[in-house]
């Protein structure tokens, strides 16, 4: 039997799959019938309630449509979970706050300098994507420790832009 811990919209579901493919959801009684429809489409009958699930693997996670909203879902094995707990326990606590690019974009303006004290909600950097300017704001107060980009630079999604302390 394999056990999977699924994290979805902040909730955790524990799902067991037996060697012959029979599955059960911890804390949930009743029949669940899952079929692959084709491509990213799946059909689930929970009892007789019909739910369409559109899902694909992206990176180590899964992207799933829930109420027409694309959400990220994480699946871990029990082993993953143990390794992760160990890593968190042994790692040193640090109060650094990284600013990443939320999309591929062009840097239009950097609005702070290294050493500046910033307030929560203060604008840090302006990116242009799809012809719109988007201001990246600080979610918390802090001090600018490092700036990795400058005006005119093209950045990838997820690229580290700035480090706050």
């Amino acid at each position, binding site marked *: 039997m394999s056990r*999977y811990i699924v994290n979805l*919209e902040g909730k955790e579901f524990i799902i067991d799959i037996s060697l012959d493919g029979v599955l059960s959801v911890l804390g949930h009684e009743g029949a669940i019938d899952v079929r692959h429809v084709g*491509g*990213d489409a799946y059909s689930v009958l929970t009892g007789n309630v019909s*739910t369409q699930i559109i899902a694909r693997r992206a990176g180590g996670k899964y*992207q799933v*449509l829930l109420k*027409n909203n694309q959400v990220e879902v994480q699946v871990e094995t029990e082993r993953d979970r143990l390794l992760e707990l160990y890593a968190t326990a042994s790692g040193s606590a640090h109060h650094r706050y990284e600013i990443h690019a939320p999309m591929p974009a062009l840097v239009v303006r950097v609005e702070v300098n290294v050493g500046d004290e910033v307030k929560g909600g203060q604008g840090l950097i302006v990116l242009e994507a799809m012809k719109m300017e*988007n201001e990246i704001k600080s979610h918390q107060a802090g001090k600018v420790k490092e700036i990795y980009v400058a005006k005119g630079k093209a950045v990838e999604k997820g690229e580290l832009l700035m480090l706050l302390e």
Partner: protein
Amino acid sequence: MKTRTIKKVLIANRGEIAVRIIRSCKEMGIKTVAVYSDVDRTMPHVLMADEAYPIGLAPSRESYLVIDNIIGAAKQSGADAIHPGYGFLSERAEFAERVIKEGLIFIGPLPESIRAMGDKTAARKLVSKANVPTVPGTPDAIGSEDEAKAFCKSAGFPVLIKAAAGGGGKGMRVVHKMDELSSAFQGAKSEAENAFGDSRVYLEKYLEQPRHIEFQILADQYGNTIHLGERECSIQRRHQKLIEETPSVIVDDALRAKMGETAVNAAKACGYHNAGTIEFLVDKNRNFYFLEMNTRLQVEHPITELRTGIDLVAAQLRIAMGEKLPWSQKDITFRGHAIECRICAEDPENNYLPSTGVISHLRPALGVGVREDRGIEQGGEVSVYYDPMLSKLICWGATRIEAIERMKRALREYQLLGVKTNIPLHLFVLEHPNFLSGEFDTHFLQNHFTPEKLPHAIETEQIAAAVVCAMKHHTNSANRSPSSEANGYTPSKWKAQRTDNMRGDT
């Protein structure tokens, strides 16, 4: 003015509007020529056109905005006309001028009309002379922050900064107090420069609780000008339209006739021909003010098509060929109610941030009363280079409530995986009591929306999603027949323990 046949049209655009134009051309037996940037080689407009020509690199300044490249493709293909779509070069008078100079037909108004309406401050002066009411504002574009300050002091806040050269919400900023002015002024100028190659801005008094209502105009080359009724476009985010409908709940027959006549006069003031749109702001007392004229086809034109039965792109082509309008104002009849929702690649949970990625799954909403105009397909990539609007869902109903319920059904039916979309936001709006009662203005989203109000999945749906992800993870990690996933159509099958009394009696 003589009639000239159009046999082949080059479409100087991409995305859904290029596809839209190609479709009407096909229905009229007109050949189509697509142009494409490096990253658009396999996009639907290239696949659907009869011919396709590369015009440069991904950034639009190096392809879709390069007049020489587009004229070059037109010449090479032997096209006899160019349709500009909306955005890009559609409202650049010098483009229309160049097209005409090269002996081609520009499917749109005269360059003089574009120029007259393109300078937003000049346009306000022009239509005022035709007794069209306008919003109080600076008569001309302003050069310095000091001039801006002076207007704010005299008119009072809030104040709107707008690009003199453009529309579509680009280069637009609302200013509520003096210490926001400086950054808003610079931001607007930089965005205007970016979008229109012209950084001039002007200021207007910002109306309280305004509705944005526009009128569709059709005019032939012989001075016959009619309107096709209004479109209510008040539901906006970041000054860009999100949902449009026709009719507007606040426009009755008398107001429609009055605004329609005013719109026709505004169009005539610039000697307009072809399809155009007069945008008005309407205050809570149903006073209306000319905002601007869009001298091209509008994104939201399909709702007018559904309510009047007129194919606006076909009408544009016929007008450009020199045909007379086959309708006078009294021939225009309206039926039912139509709504459009713009499906954009953006994240309503995160300040409408654009979302990019590859669309791995796309299933349309079909059936009774549903139309879709899209410029993407499954397998296509949503890149950072162009507008985030992927598709438009348009629904018709005999009544407003039928149209709304149909749109909700269609939005829920629509499946797009690969990028975040604003479909959940549309569902929020369509279920909101103020939207249903018609009591809304352009501030609807600021006033009523926060991300936690988006629809939430119920537990059955969450369990279903969790089970599918666990299955996929299990199949992947165990390497159990990955091919059954890859080939895409062998139904795989997993089963939970059966509780037999929960099943049918067969």
